[in-house]
């Protein structure tokens, strides 16, 4: 009984830490609708800044409080700068583009933090009062954990007071419900958004600073915290502070008891919780259906098939791609093979994201399932490459059908997060089912059949399958199926009224996207010769999103342009030093220059030029 009580307290302390990180994220999302991927980076900066401050201050509790608050304020200032310099410029851009920009910020902050604070983990020597424990039911419980248990609800209370008892809070709540109306009433939205973003960033910094005495400030903090912070926000209901607090409690306490009962569950527990909650409550515990911001409801113009000029351009590019092996060296060929794979991977995500209106944060799952299917065909069945390539899209498609049944009922960020949950579960299975998947050591020796073993043949095969696959997907989108799918995206209600079965259409798109990604995964497996769980890990899903957004969601050429650009850029930059800061700045520059993606910008320029010529 005492042990249970102690474990409960431990869970509460964990919940407080989780809540502090998630609170900032949910505040930012609620008002600005920005899915702030760099929130983990702000958390990390908070910890590092706190270390720099606290290691220079005396060790007394009052100075500790001062240092932590200083770190929070400093992070808030960084957040405000980030908002003014970067995010303010792209609020009107298509949804999720801000995610791309903040992804660039993550990369930049990683290199900057390494440069400023060095590679060694920085821990703060704990004075006696931070080390102490109190005796509870005959067992020792850290005093600092008790402090955390109090800080969480205190911050929640403070925020609720701020939002419900001040004029600023009133405006923020109004903006959360209808930002155009608030603007029409003469409120300066820019000040409002900047202050909200600064508040969110400050909370992240506070979370990081408060985590410092429990461990160290280190360069892995950003990515280790961001996924869990998102989970808490979504489980609670996006934009709901109370919900985030409840979700943090749920996850913190389940974690404390879960790992005592099933120690190996650590990799997936939070994602299992999220999947379960979202399946039962699609908008999280306390979330409300997302209020459509005005301006977003208008239907997007349907995508036209490429004009003759663009078609010629496409053919020339394809011809150049086919002839590439005659001039390109082996390394360039392997980059181009990866680019071909990325084209199909991105095109398949585009089916969901563009015409389907369903962004996925877990698209790498299908890529990975395809790759593992190929590995299974090669190693388990001892079959040739043809079997693997055929098996992959069906395996991925079948699994997508199963998962899609839950996913397509939802929309927006909730849908995206549910795909993430399923992807993480798939990843954990690949990671932990060592007997079958080889665990994180992966499956080796998945090399192509003899006839395709040389680089040019493998490249042509990849080109054939991936570009062919992408063309099939394109064909489907210009078929009645594609138009019907678009109708369900633009207005599900009207689509249903004219007899379209929205659920089945969306499910079909989901399965199609899964199968396409599965095929790309199988091609990748044979090109690389090995399959690893990293193929379905979060960073790979992020790569897919980045590719599509970089190219442009609302054009057919977008995913192709994005995939080639991103693959070539990344593999080129990776050869040099400081590639993260370069890639990050480049992504930010591209986002600012081409908010509708590279292909979107190109087509706008083309239209304008043609308009003038005509």
């Amino acid at each position, binding site marked *: 009984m005492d042990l249970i009580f102690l474990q409960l307290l431990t869970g509460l*302390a964990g919940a407080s830490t989780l809540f502090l990180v998630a609170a900032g994220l949910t505040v930012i999302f609620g008002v600005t609708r920005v899915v702030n991927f760099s929130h983990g980076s702000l958390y990390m900066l908070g910890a590092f800044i706190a270390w720099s401050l606290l290691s220079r201050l005396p060790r007394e509790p009052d100075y500790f409080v001062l240092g932590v608050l200083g770190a929070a304020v400093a992070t808030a200032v960084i957040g405000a700068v980030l908002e003014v310099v970067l995010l303010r410029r792209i609020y009107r851009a298509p949804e999720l583009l801000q995610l791309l920009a903040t992804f660039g910020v993550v990369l930049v902050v990683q290199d900057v933090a390494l440069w400023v604070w060095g590679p060694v983990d920085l821990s703060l020597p704990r004075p006696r009062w931070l080390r102490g424990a109190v005796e509870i039911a005959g067992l020792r419980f850290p005093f600092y954990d008790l402090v955390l248990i109090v800080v969480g609800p205190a911050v929640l209370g403070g925020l609720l007071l701020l939002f419900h008892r001040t004029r600023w809070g009133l405006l923020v709540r109004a903006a959360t419900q209808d930002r155009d109306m608030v603007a029409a009433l003469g409120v300066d939205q820019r000040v409002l958004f900047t202050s909200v973003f600064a508040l969110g960033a400050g909370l992240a910094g506070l979370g990081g600073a408060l985590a410092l005495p*429990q461990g160290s400030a280190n360069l892995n903090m950003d990515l280790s915290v961001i996924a869990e912070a998102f989970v808490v926000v979504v489980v609670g209901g996006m934009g709901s502070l109370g919900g985030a607090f409840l979700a943090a409690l749920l996850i913190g306490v389940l974690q404390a008891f879960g790992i005592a009962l099933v120690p190996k569950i650590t990799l997936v527990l939070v994602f299992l919780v999220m999947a379960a909650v979202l399946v039962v409550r699609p908008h999280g515990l306390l979330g409300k259906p997302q209020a459509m911001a005005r301006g977003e409801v208008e239907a997007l113009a349907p995508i036209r098939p490429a004009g003759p000029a663009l078609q010629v351009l496409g053919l020339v590019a394809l011809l150049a791609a086919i002839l590439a092996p005659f001039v390109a060296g082996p*390394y360039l060929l392997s980059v181009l093979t990866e680019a071909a794979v990325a084209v199909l991977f991105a095109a398949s995500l585009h089916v969901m994201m563009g015409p389907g209106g369903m962004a996925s944060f877990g698209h790498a799952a299908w890529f990975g399932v395809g790759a593992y299917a190929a590995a299974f065909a090669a190693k388990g069945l001892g079959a040739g490459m043809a079997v693997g390539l055929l098996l992959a899209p069906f395996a991925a498609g079948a699994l997508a059908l199963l998962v899609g049944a839950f996913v397509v009922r939802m929309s927006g960020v909730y849908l995206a997060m549910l795909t993430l949950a399923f992807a993480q579960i798939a990843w954990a299975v690949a990671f932990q089912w060592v007997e079958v998947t080889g665990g994180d050591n992966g499956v080796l*020796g998945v090399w192509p059949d003899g006839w395709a073993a040389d680089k040019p043949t493998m490249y042509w095969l990849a080109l054939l399958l991936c570009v062919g696959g992408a063309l099939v997907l394109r064909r489907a989108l210009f078929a009645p199926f594609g138009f019907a799918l678009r109708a369900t995206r633009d207005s599900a209600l009207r689509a249903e009224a004219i007899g379209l079965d929205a659920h089945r259409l969306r499910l079909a798109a989901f399965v199609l996207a899964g199968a396409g990604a599965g095929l790309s995964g199988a091609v990748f497996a044979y090109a690389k010769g090995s399959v690893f769980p990293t193929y379905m890990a979060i960073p790979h899903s992020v790569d897919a999103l980045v590719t599509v957004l970089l190219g442009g969601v609302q054009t057919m050429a977008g995913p192709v342009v994005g995939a080639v650009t991103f693959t070539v850029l990344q593999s080129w930059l990776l050869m040099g030093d400081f590639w993260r800061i370069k890639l990050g700045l480049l992504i930010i520059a591209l986002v600012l220059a081409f908010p509708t993606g590279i292909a979107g910008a190109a087509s706008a320029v083309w239209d304008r030029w043609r308009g003038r010529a005509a």
Partner: protein
Amino acid sequence: MPVSRRTLLAAGAATVAAPGLLRAQSTSAPIRIGEINSYTAIPAFTLPYRMGWQLAVEQVNAAGGVLGRKLEVISHDDAGKPQDAVRLAGALLDETKVDVLAGGFLSNVGLAMSDVAKQRKRLFVASEPLTDALVWEQGHRYCYRLRPSTYMQVAMMVDDAVKLGAKRWVTVSPNYEYGQSLVKWFKLLMQQRQPGIEFVAEQWPALGRIDAGATVAALAQARPDAIFNGTFGPDLTNFVRQGNTRGLFEKRGVVSVLTGEPEYLEPLGDETPEGWIVTGWPVESVTDASNAGFIAAYRAKFGEMPKMGSVVGHATITAIAAGIAKSGSVDTEAMADGFKGAKFPTPFGEAYWRAQDNQGTLGTYVGRTAVKGGKGVMVDWRYADGASAMPTDEEVRKLRPV
């Protein structure tokens, strides 16, 4: 001409004395080593590692290089992803035309590169990856590995672990292959040596995301006599702090892998628990000539104390240099045979490449943790030679199908 430690040291002195004389030597094209590691993903280990191999390249070249040719290292970052490592390995072989591939920190990256080496029939010298699979289950003729594997790390500590006389053990180890393999070997070797031993609980925190409070509480709940730990880095710091405050380590023996390595011991600071049995490197108290010479040269070049990564980086280059020197050429087949048995100098003393499984015999230090002047240090240490921490040749043959 085998490169011995003495030639290296003499050459180091000679460079200082007469740099102009040496530059005139070895006019032929350099021997190229293509190196890939997780520089951005694991900077705490890999940045000192890079400085280590930079120092070694400088020293080997100052001593006249290998086979009369200079060494040149072309290094890339794999971002912690096996697929990027595979592509870069291809680039190094095809474009840069390197003679040898080397590097790797993460086990899966190491295995991916090893598989490329197997497919392309080119030599790969894995420096850091600790997975046993690299030289055993997935081992092959073209893959050599320098550092003591998970099996060896555990085997080196078993004697001391048995002496604790503890009956009830708990384990805590990161939830991936490295951690699982450590626990598997520890249980197996302990059960052979100490019948009646019980493993009463285990914890598998996700790497980099340990929930230290809950983990410590769950371990304490099992009321163990002793603890086996495989966590390292940020997870270890969190675990130790919670464990200290909650009194988990009091009156309990702890056996902890890698904790004595400077990169992991330093962040523990004055909270380093006393008396843990650890593997690592007592960098502040080793005084023998090879360690001292290495530390002095490293400090002279970089102005800071070397870390374990520095040792691994340095030894990677000297081990390759010695292998090439013994092979007499950079032809892959000649090297695949010639590396076997080649002796090379390391900061820890001389080591060699085992003929039976291509494993390096570079060892590590086993000792106890203590706090001196507010810092964690290793005391009562001894050097555990890698050659003596291996299963019998009979067992190795069973484990290594090639």
